[in-house]
């Protein structure tokens, strides 16, 4: 299904009628006694679609990501992953954090393969696992650095490794929580195009949580704006600007203004 074989990196926009990987309906979530972080929230992500969840800090977008990823239980509503109700994190979903959060005592290859042999993961043989690890490392352009340890990697390389760790799980859906906001501008731009490229080649869908409007426009097929208190989804844009989007400054600028306008209305 998710063949990790390299294919030409065409901009394959997800077809509007593609089946959903993830479907959330009527989600509410509250931390203890504090008011709800978000309520009555519904979102669906189609196969191979990159969705950017855009919002200011503290709007609850990271919490929403955790609920969608099965790491936190919603107070109300349900999340369906590949058409089954998700009770625990699905083996075909993977996470990338703002920090690479590599395990410093494991080398790059072992970091990428971390957890593939855990009891609740799909059972695979060692050879198959090694193959997946190798393909994931190659996909992020780190072939040849398998033996390096996290302390020896730059920030960008560490984040590439974190991306490879997610890819090694052959995810149907990649959850990324502000994955590039700790990187410098040049590395960030590289990583953004790498993410798009890899997601397309691996036929994965992605949910990218970000507070960076430009990042959302450059990366996503669809942008969802979150805001309000309790949080809800305020607005949605389908981004049909052809890639590479840097080559279409007018369209990018127009969308940027539209999003800024919506943000102003929201606050």
């Amino acid at each position, binding site marked *: 299904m998710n063949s990790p074989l390299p294919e030409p990196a065409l901009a394959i926009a997800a077809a509007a009628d593609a089946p959903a990987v993830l479907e959330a309906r009527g989600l509410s979530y509250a931390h203890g006694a504090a008011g709800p972080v978000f309520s009555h929230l519904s979102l669906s992500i189609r196969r191979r679609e990159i969705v950017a969840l855009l919002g200011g800090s503290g709007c609850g977008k990271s919490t929403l990501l955790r609920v969608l990823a*099965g*790491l936190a239980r919603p107070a109300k509503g349900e999340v369906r992953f590949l058409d089954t109700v998700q009770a625990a*994190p699905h*083996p075909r*979903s993977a996470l990338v954090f703002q920090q690479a959060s590599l*395990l*410093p005592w494991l080398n790059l290859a072992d970091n990428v393969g971390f957890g593939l042999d*855990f009891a609740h993961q799909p059972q695979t043989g060692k050879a198959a696992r090694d193959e997946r690890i190798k393909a994931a490392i190659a996909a992020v352009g780190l072939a040849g650095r398998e033996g390096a340890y996290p*302390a*020896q990697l730059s920030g960008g390389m560490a984040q590439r490794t974190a991306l490879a760790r997610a890819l090694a799980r052959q995810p149907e859906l990649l959850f990324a929580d502000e994955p590039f906001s700790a990187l410098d501008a040049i590395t960030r731009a590289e990583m953004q195009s790498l993410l798009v490229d890899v997601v397309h080649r691996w036929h994965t869908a992605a949910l990218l949580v970000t507070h960076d409007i430009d990042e959302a426009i450059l990366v996503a097929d669809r942008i969802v704006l979150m805001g309000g208190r309790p949080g809800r989804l305020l607005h949605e844009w389908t981004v049909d600007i052809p890639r590479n989007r840097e080559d279409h400054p007018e369209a990018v600028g127009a969308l940027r203004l539209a999003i800024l306008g919506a943000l102003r209305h929201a606050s």
Partner: protein
Amino acid sequence: MMGANLLLPLSGLVLAALAWAAGSVWLAGVTPIAASFAPLETARALLALLQGAELWEHVAVSLERVAVGLGVALLLGTPLGVLTGLSPLFSRSTTPLFQFARMISPLSWMPLAVMVLGVGNAPVYFLLAFAAVWPILLNTAAGVAQLDKNWLLLARSLSATRRETIVHVILPGITAQILTGVRLAIGIIWIVLVPAEMLGVSAGLGYFILDARDRLAYSDLMAAILVIGFLGYLLDHAARTLHKRWLHAA
């Protein structure tokens, strides 16, 4: 580059040796017997001691005590530290006690230790373990508290079992901090060792110092001091290397 790296530390050592020589010349003017404190006398004594068997026996006894003390401290300090880091209840109920006990010089327990445990190795083991347990305990607890939350999140996203989380994330995740604790513990143990060996035992570097004093063999005494410093340096270096190896720091 390499030369410059060695030159500065060496110059400090040479300067200290010169000061030592000047001091012993001055002291010999006041008390003639102090001439045997001088660097040259000491070097001669050291050479003789290194060639004989006696000093090595004392060194072996002392190192064995360090190993036992550190081992006991690790066996007690690591689980207690994990418990302190994981359980706020345990942490709140024990922190004042630990902070209190930590600030008591282990040597002040010496009379009590000898009374309870008798003369011999047992009170020395006790004092060393008692000195070393705090840095290990506190660093382990800090290690648990500082575990990267994302590692735990990652483990949960992999639906890791409790055992997998402990074996693959928590234990290796706090090992660096435990090793930091071990390094501090070695420093403290090495300092406590010599005075602890001055009571009720008949071997070890601390005993050797007292013995040399009683024999008026001051150059042997100075040689023993050099050996103690050098071994301490080596132990600390070993602990630091272990720490670096574990983290694979460049």
